[in-house]
């Protein structure tokens, strides 16, 4: 097990953003997965792939300390999970606001900044600084044009950008994104993937993105982790993505093609429901 190194000055070599070693999770007596290992360095962009129901969201719950592992070691930003959540930005899965939600995008972003604080916000410099921070975040994700509108009236892609801004509100060192490209159209998938990659490069944020379609993020990834009930396979996209590895992991035929500009494309049905488990009943 690694010694938890408290991070002192920025720029110094920090503790791993995520360090999971040989972990196992049981939910309601059922083993979700075991022998899972995942190491993410600061500034790395890592995708967690795997069939539906294999426990990808569960993995993020473990990193957030909302779920305990039944075996193995977990450390997050150099501390036990749950102790560093104020330095983690989290984008939960499939979250959309329906048209009846009459709250501005700006307010939703603001909740990420100080929504967890007790008491009333006092008007004054603190409040002005918060408003400036929210405006900066909205600008960063390119949502300035519509952030003042009720979030329920925005498209899925627009909502997703604002939710990413919310997750970034407290300048996290680790960003956990649960299928952020789900239900977005192709141009928006590319735009959001590019945005996340830019944050990763420019701000040194470690990103763990759960995805079931690897293609939109493939050009940006440092590492790919495939999650299966019996363990993980981790490596660079070029190492892990060979056809046989994929087919074995998913249990269905997969093909990896190379496009004319040298990009890899995974074909097959990585998002086909391999088995429907109780993913919606997770606490």
């Amino acid at each position, binding site marked *: 097990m690694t010694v938890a190194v408290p991070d002192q000055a920025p720029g110094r070599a920090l503790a791993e953003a995520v360090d999971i070693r040989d972990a196992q999770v049981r939910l309601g007596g059922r083993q979700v997965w075991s022998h899972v290992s995942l190491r993410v360095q600061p500034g790395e962009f890592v995708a967690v792939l795997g069939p539906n129901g294999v426990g990808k969201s569960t993995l993020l719950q473990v990193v*957030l300390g*909302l779920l305990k592992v039944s075996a193995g070691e977990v450390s997050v930003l150099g501390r036990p999970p749950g102790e560093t*959540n*104020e330095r*983690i930005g*989290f*984008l*939960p899965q499939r*979250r959309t*606001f329906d048209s009846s*939600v*009459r*709250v*501005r995008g700006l*307010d*939703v972003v603001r*909740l*990420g900044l*100080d*929504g*967890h*604080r*007790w*008491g*009333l*916000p006092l008007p004054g410099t603190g409040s002005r600084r918060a408003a400036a921070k929210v405006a900066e975040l909205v600008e960063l994700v390119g949502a300035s044009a519509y952030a003042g*509108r*009720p979030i329920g009236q925005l498209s899925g892609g627009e909502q997703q950008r604002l*939710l990413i801004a*919310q*997750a970034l509100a407290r300048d996290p060192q680790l960003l956990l994104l649960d299928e952020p490209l789900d239900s977005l159209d192709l141009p928006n998938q590319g735009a959001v993937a590019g945005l996340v990659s830019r944050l990763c490069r420019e701000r040194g944020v470690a990103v763990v993105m759960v995805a079931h379609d690897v293609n939109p993020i493939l050009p940006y990834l440092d590492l790919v982790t495939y999650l299966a009930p019996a363990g993980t396979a981790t490596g660079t996209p070029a190492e892990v993505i060979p056809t046989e590895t994929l087919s074995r992991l998913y249990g269905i035929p997969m093909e990896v093609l190379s496009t004319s500009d040298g990009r890899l494309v995974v074909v097959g049905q990585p998002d086909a429901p391999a088995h429907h488990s109780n993913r*919606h*009943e997770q*606490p």
Partner: protein
Amino acid sequence: MNQPGWNPVADLQQMWALPFMVNAYRAGTVLALLAGLVGFLMVTRRQAFAGHTLSAVGFPGAAGATWLGVPAALGYFGFCVAAALTIAAAPSSARLRFSEENALVGTVQAFALACGYLFVVLYHGVLGGTTALLFGSFLGVTAGQVTTLAVLAVVLLAVLAAIGRPLLFASLDPQAARASGVPVRALDVVFLVLLAATAAEVVQITGALMVFTLLVLPPAAARELTCRPAAGLALSVVLALLVTWVALGVAYYSPYPIGFWLSSIAFGTYLLARATRAVRDRVPA
């Protein structure tokens, strides 16, 4: 029935020369303030049905207290808070919660109303105040009642101020709130109890069936007019106060009951707010 003159100042002076009208205005102001704020969060959380049930529970609460010969306030708070805790005990699997909650809330309401009827019958039918229990007794408020209402309102508003921001976060975005360390489940319970206490307080004056006029309509109208949470809260209170004050004044000079005016004016305000939004949505900003 009183005839209004042509001098509004003299009319107001005449009305406020009567202690029972002064008390009605004081009580109405406290209730509007409380209902405007708590109601706004209730509407945002889509718990209007729970709010309705917690208000309806005031009826068996009061009827039971009268039957047993204990103070009515005890019955109101006892029953309302007990109902809130029953509803809060519903399993809170985030995704399923609201649909399961609705079924449970309906059950609680039906059972509560049946109990209320039973208590009325057990009291041997001469529970003269049944109309007041259902439709309120704005004009019979005593100075002592006003003080009690105000003290309780201060306590409830202090709690609301302390938990307001995380509560809004948990209401709009429970998963992200939970990851940020907001105790979402605990806030669910605290808010339901707060809603129950508010309902118990308002019910005593407006009656079990008229609570909703203050708890739902002003917040719903405010939400049509603004999508800023702080402005919405403020507007909700302002509308609740206006509706209450105007309704009391109009009722004083008319032969029709206060409950009728309260709900009609509140409903009119809501329609106006909707119309305003419809016009505003059509005209691009």
